[in-house]
């Protein structure tokens, strides 16, 4: 019933919990699902109400104490039955529908039991089943099952009163486990063991031991958001790039397409202050010969990922075609409103003084000008993809989403360039997946995730790469597909910093915010398509302000990107 891990419908379950709690600033430790995988609306509400009425961190500490016990699942199910009664009584006055929802849940319980297979029935804990059956039978007005005296006492003990506060509930939970299972919450060995705590931490976060490119290394936990958290382990910090690092970067990503002097000029301008220890590497992925085993392994992994992207692309070709059509239609509507309408003669509007004679001489009343139907597009778009390791579980989706955006813009004859960025061994690597003049967008399927992301430097570098003279004078938009979680192994540097600070957290977000602000000041419209964890939503808002849309599936892409483009066009044209 209550699961401690996230599954496919987790977002919906979390929304039910947040809604019942009246807050959205916490990550629920428990989610409830039916055996068929659908979120259990009632029990998720209960989980939210527990958050609302009781001190959940303290309860979670209690749950964690028996986490290693083989009866942990059984304890969970029983104690949640007790909590259900408690919060039901607390909330009923404020939410009268709860009574009906509870009755519905009781009916669902019995309907669900009929659908269970023999194996599922055998797998159930009889103690839990009996208590649940008794609870739901009494709620649903059915005949209650016959209980032994012990079971009756247990059922009574599980009616945690609505008058209890957190201390009272903790006492009741402790007393229940002590009286019926001889499990003592106050025992010394019941406290969470440091080793277990560390193991949990390792599961939650990927620790970086050495600074090399890792491809598809999961957390093992299958995060519901499909995002991977990266943390600095301390030892993995990178100080300044060496010649060996440059050789490695070239071996992995291909030769740099910017000439050496140009690269030095760019580095002198951009790799200063907080990025003083960084170098730039701009590539189109042209491979170089190498004997570096690590580099070759990474290249093989990248090729495998490309194959996966292409398979995903082929498998979803109908959806992709539809999305391209939908997005290009929407973008066409946006652009036709925002680009300058070419004037056409009309019978009212702005008087053309040079044509006024036609009225008296030729009786031609079309001596006015009005905005015509035709527009004059003057725009080019940069699409910047975060290719750091935090994106590794969504590589196929991201490559297809960026294909949809690029192909939609190309369909409207708007030049688009797609670049992926990641940082590694002190190098900010900007990989051009599709250049301005390429009409075929399938190059974006070369996308793969690996490395870190130094968002600020990537945005600044791309802002400077405006190398096609044919596009000069056009309005420029930059769309960033991001999870708004900048993080790099090369620390922040700069004057006044006696001890260098890690490039992560608030400092990294602030750096990205400043970079975006700088680019906007230079006349480039910058917006973000946020595709990440809710906990980073605030980062996205801080970095990109209101020019940020959140999408969760490719189906939402057309709406999200057209809204964002509309906003950016409006800001650019009206400012």
């Amino acid at each position, binding site marked *: 019933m209550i699961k401690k891990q996230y599954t496919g419908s987790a977002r919906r379950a979390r*929304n039910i919990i947040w809604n019942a709690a009246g807050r*959205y600033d916490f990550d629920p430790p428990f989610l409830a699902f039916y055996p068929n995988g659908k979120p259990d609306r009632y029990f998720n*509400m209960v989980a939210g109400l527990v958050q609302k009425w009781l001190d959940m961190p303290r309860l979670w500490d209690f749950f964690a104490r028996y986490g290693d016990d083989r009866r942990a699942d059984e304890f969970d199910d029983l104690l949640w039955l007790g909590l259900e009664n408690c919060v039901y009584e607390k909330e009923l006055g404020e*939410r009268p529908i709860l009574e009906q929802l509870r009755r519905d849940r009781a009916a669902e319980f019995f309907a669900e039991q009929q659908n269970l297979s023999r194996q599922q029935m055998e797998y159930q804990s009889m103690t839990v089943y009996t208590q649940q059956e008794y609870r739901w039978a009494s709620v649903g007005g059915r005949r209650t099952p016959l209980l032994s005296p012990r079971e009756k006492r247990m059922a009574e003990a599980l009616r945690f009163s609505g008058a209890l506060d957190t201390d009272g509930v903790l006492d009741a939970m402790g007393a229940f486990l002590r009286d019926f299972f001889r499990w003592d919450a106050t025992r010394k060995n019941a406290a969470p063991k440091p080793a277990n705590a560390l193991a949990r931490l390792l599961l939650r976060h990927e620790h970086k031991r050495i600074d090399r490119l890792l491809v598809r290394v999961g957390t093992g936990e299958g995060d519901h958001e499909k995002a991977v958290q990266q943390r600095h382990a301390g030892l993995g910090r990178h100080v300044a790039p060496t010649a060996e690092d440059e050789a490695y970067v070239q071996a992995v990503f291909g030769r740099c397409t910017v000439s050496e002097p140009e690269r030095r000029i760019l580095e002198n301008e951009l790799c200063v202050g907080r990025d003083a220890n960084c170098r730039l590497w701009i590539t189109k992925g042209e491979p170089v010969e190498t004997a570096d085993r690590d580099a070759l392994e990474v290249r093989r992994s990248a090729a495998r990922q490309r194959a996966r992207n292409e398979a995903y692309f082929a498998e979803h070709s109908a959806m992709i075609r539809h999305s391209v059509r939908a997005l290009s239609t929407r973008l066409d509507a946006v652009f036709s409103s925002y680009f300058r309408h070419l004037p056409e003669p009309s019978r009212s509007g*702005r008087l053309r003084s040079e044509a006024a004679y036609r009225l008296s001489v030729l009786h031609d009343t079309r001596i006015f000008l009005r905005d015509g139907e035709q527009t004059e597009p003057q725009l080019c778009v940069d699409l910047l993809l975060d290719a750091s390791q935090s994106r590794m579980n969504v590589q196929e989706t991201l490559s297809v989403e960026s294909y949809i955006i690029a192909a939609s813009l190309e369909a409207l004859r708007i030049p688009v360039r797609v670049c992926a960025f990641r940082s590694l061994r002190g190098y900010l690597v900007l990989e051009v997946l599709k250049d301005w003049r390429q009409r075929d967008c399938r190059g974006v399927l070369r996308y793969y995730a690996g490395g870190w992301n130094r968002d600020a430097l990537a945005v600044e570098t791309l802002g400077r790469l405006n190398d096609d003279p044919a596009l000069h004078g056009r309005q420029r938009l930059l769309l960033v597909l991001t999870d708004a979680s900048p993080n790099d192994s090369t620390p922040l540097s700069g004057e006044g910093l006696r001890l260098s600070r890690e490039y992560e957290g608030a400092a990294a977000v602030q750096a990205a915010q400043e970079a975006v602000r700088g680019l906007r000041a230079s006349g480039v419209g910058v917006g973000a398509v946020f595709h990440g964890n809710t906990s980073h939503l605030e980062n996205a808002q801080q970095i990109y302000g209101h020019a940020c849309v959140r999408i969760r599936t490719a189906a939402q892409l057309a709406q999200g990107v057209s809204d964002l483009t509309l906003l950016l066009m409006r800001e650019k044209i*009206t400012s």
Partner: protein
Amino acid sequence: MNLIYSFLEAEGVDKSLLEGVRAFCERYPTEPENAPRVPAPEYYYYGNKTWELALAAILAGKNLLLAGPKATGKNVLCENLGALFGRPVWNVSFHINADASYLVGTDTFDGKQVTFRPGPVWLCAAKGGFGILDEVNMAKNEALAVLHAALDFRRSLDVPGYEKIDLRPETRFIATMNYGYAGTRELNEALTSRFAVLDMPVITEENLQKLISRRYPNINVRLRDQFAKLYGELERKAGSAEISDAALDLRGLLDAIALMEQGIASGDALEMCVVNKSFDAYERGLIRDVIAARIPTDLTRDVVFSA
């Protein structure tokens, strides 16, 4: 005085401001030919502080800019102000292609000669009306520059090639602008400085209860409270970007109650007027979950309206 005046008295809006309104109305009575343009609002705006700030600005001769997210009652307040002061209202909906001629007027040929066809801003200035500049931040700044002289101390409107007119003293402009998560741009400084800016608060649960009660006096009080709470929950969900603000539609909620009054079951009414405002299937699921946690789907008219 009119109904809305009595409503404000009952709500406890500052008496001296209401006296000011009375004096204004006596000094500038509604001309009979303009009477059809004076709004007769269906809904009243609730929120005493906002009312007092808006009244003070209008009485001081200032133009008002109502800024706030969706469903905060900006247009309701505009209409209410027009009705309270008894002024004819010209509503100008801004769009990106709105230009000076759209606002002030344009040349046209009347069969004999080129003449000036006045636009809503010109008419408002000449007839002493309230000009509602709806979604003012949708327009290009150069289109709005034509309003600068009308909105500041000069209070005049100069139409190139035609005459310059002075605004009548009772003329006011009330602009609205929306902002939000994926919202709209900010207004430029030159224009903003010509308005007193009123940041519109989101309607409180208590005021929403009053609003529902006033519109549907027979509604069951317990259910009314649940509808108000439901709206608050949707607002929190949209605020945390879990759903778009498509379903955060106060009009939609009131429309749903209107449908229930017509005999539609609560589930269907809310589905039509709230859930279906979102065109994303997943998002609709989230909205349904919020509704299911507050309102039963099978409520009939007799239950909803059993005061």
